[in-house]
């Protein structure tokens, strides 16, 4: 699949993520933010469990042959949620989003640059620095 198609696909998935956040905010106000997050993970896990049943060869056995650090993805998501619940009341939603997004973009450039976490190396070049600057400017304009 060409790169551009993949990027557009991911962009659409990101749009869905905003809808999720739009639903999650008011839900969290009513039932608590941890419970709201639980609903996302629980419903998601159950739907994917159903999907796994109908996959030709779900690779659960291969899963536990992997190095353990590769299985920690699910532990990191809740860390983010906890950070969000702790900081939002203290610094406000706008600042929270800016901080999170800056951390996210910066870390993604660093991970690519050094080829950390088993990813392919993609060195920081002038294009990538330019992209970082544009994103910071966009954040500044919105918040």
């Amino acid at each position, binding site marked *: 699949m060409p*790169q551009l198609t993949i990027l557009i696909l991911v962009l659409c998935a990101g749009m869905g993520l905003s809808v999720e956040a739009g639903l999650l905010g008011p839900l969290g106000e009513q039932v608590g933010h941890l419970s709201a997050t639980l609903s996302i993970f629980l419903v998601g896990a159950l739907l994917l469990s159903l999907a796994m049943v109908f996959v030709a060869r779900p690779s659960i056995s291969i899963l536990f042959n992997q190095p353990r650090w590769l299985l920690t993805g699910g532990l990191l998501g809740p860390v983010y949620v906890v950070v969000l619940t702790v900081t939002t009341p203290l610094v406000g939603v706008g600042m929270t989003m800016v901080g999170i997004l800056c951390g996210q973009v910066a870390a993604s450039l660093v991970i690519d640059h050094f080829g950390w976490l088993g990813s392919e190396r993609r060195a920081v070049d002038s294009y990538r620095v330019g992209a970082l600057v544009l994103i910071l400017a966009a954040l500044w304009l919105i918040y």
Partner: protein
Amino acid sequence: MLLTLMYPLLLLGGAVLAAQSSVNGRLGSTVGVLTSAWLTFSMGAVVTFLLVFFFEPHHEATLFSVPKWQLTGALFGVIYMLAIVFAIPRVGTAAATVAVISGQMLMSLMIDHFGWLGNARLPLDGPRIMAIILLASALCLIYMSNTRRERLVACSS
């Protein structure tokens, strides 16, 4: 004092998201997109269940009493996770992250503009349109960085 501690914490929260995507992408390339997403959601459910059990203050409403449409956010979360696990081994963490963020911002600006999902209307103004243009340009730059790298790799091999 407490406030200055918040900023590194926020950056850490963002960095953790990028790390999570990267780890999941790596796992997905060996065990498959669906299995990787399944593990992430299952582990996330286990951890948040424990957090809710021990740390959630009492609320009048519960997940069982709110209108069901409020619980449909997970659908978008699942689609996102599948897309990101598929994309990361192919385009890299930075490109995928920038694409996700652009999509998120585009949609949240649209939600604000039209007042969807019961939000107050915040019409698109000059700075917000400018922000969309900047985000699109950022995505273009990452794309150019990737394609240039592919050309270099193709030449050297």
